[in-house]
């Protein structure tokens, strides 16, 4: 599903990642761990073509990440960053707006499915009517995970999914992630979460 072949990244003449190769299979849940500056976020962003490697090849859903196929590749991905300010005033808009995008026009917004997902992810129904500025980082991340499921994406990219939630919610979220049939690639420093994944990849910082 996601394949890195001898991938390297160089920023300001400094090699961040060198000769990285990895193959994440379909429906596999993988957690990427490593110290800060090891290139975890760079690797994740390169899957979506937000950063291009200085060497090697990345393939997603059988297509090489090039500008020619980038829209098709991104159409399979749901990315939940750790911190992001969304251009919407209300939660309702944030959940409904993605269905208007060209890439998602074949999908329909299903309110019942959404409320079911809210329950599973310990989100109160009332959050749907709230303002984006009034919700916490953890709630925002869970909303975005719910959205990824509603949009029926093949790949879910998570950046520190358990960093802003309490232990009870974390258990529920981990249990939920286990049930969904999606290729999951997460960056996390949370060992209990990492242990629930099929595989842990450790990335070492180049010194």
């Amino acid at each position, binding site marked *: 599903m996601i394949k890195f072949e001898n991938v390297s990244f160089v920023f300001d003449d400094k090699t961040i990642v060198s000769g990285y190769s990895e193959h994440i299979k379909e429906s596999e849940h993988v957690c990427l761990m490593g110290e800060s500056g090891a290139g975890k976020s760079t690797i994740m*962003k390169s899957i979506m073509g937000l950063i291009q490697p200085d060497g090697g090849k990345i393939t997603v859903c059988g297509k090489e990440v090039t500008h020619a196929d980038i829209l098709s590749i*991104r159409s399979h991905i749901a990315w939940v960053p750790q911190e992001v300010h969304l251009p919407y005033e209300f939660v309702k808009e944030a959940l409904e707006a993605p269905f208007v995008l060209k*890439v998602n026009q074949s999908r329909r917004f299903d309110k019942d499915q959404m409320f079911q997902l809210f329950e599973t992810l310990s989100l109160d129904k009332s959050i749907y009517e709230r303002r984006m500025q009034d919700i916490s980082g953890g709630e925002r991340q869970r909303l975005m995970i719910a959205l990824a499921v509603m949009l029926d994406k093949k790949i879910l*990219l998570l950046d520190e999914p358990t960093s802003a939630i309490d232990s009870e919610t974390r258990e529920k979220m981990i249990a939920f992630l286990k049930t969904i049939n999606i290729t999951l690639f997460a960056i996390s420093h949370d060992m209990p979460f990492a242990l629930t994944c099929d595989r842990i990849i450790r990335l070492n910082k180049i010194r």
Partner: protein
Amino acid sequence: MQTQAITLFHLFIGLLLILIPAYILNYYKTGLVKDMFISVFRMVIQLFLVGFYLNYLFEWNNLWINIAWTLIMIGVCSGNLIKRIKLSQKIMFIPVYFSVFVSVALIVIYFLKGVLCLDDLFDSRYYIPICGILLGNVLSSSVIGLNAFYSSISREQQMYHYLLGNGATQTEAQMPFVRQSLIKAFNPAIASMAVMGLISLPGTLIGQIIGGSSPEISIRYQIMIMVINFSCSILSVLISLLWSVRYTFDSYGILKKNAFVS
């Protein structure tokens, strides 16, 4: 009615008024006195030069000279605009130049032919001042609009990347930033139109009345000036935004680093 002329001596008497703000700025040690005198000096020289060449433009009333003047002025306007928003002249000049050209040409033709019903579109008396006023407004609103777009998209890169990464096309991901830049650039003009005549009397109206036109005709001109300025500026900002992104973003939808000058 004939306009009361201002002799050079009386212009000098009028310019003495500048001593009042100079005294105030100096008294409060604002450090602006020197800049103010330089600005006033530049304004006087520039306007005398404009008066000088406008005299010739009106006298010659030549199609090719008028077109050449417009093309040069659009070049000056575009260069100034790009310089003020700190973007690369090399990348931005052509898209901005043609955006300004297209919007000014469209509005000038519409107004001079469709509204004033002039036989000669390039009649200097109408063509030159209308182009001048449009270019001035395009410059000020484009500086705000383009600056708002490029500064917000580089400041809120995470949001833009989030939208792209989740499947939005470049146009879809840029939509919130385009929207914000239009709001920033045109909110003041919309507010100003709403109170026009109530708490402000615009320069064009006053100029025409002093120049001897009846208030009725002056008002109609003023209404049209507001509408053509607004339409031309919004067209120019939008076209230059949509056109420039083809040069300032790469094929993955990412803002190029060399779009800005350091």
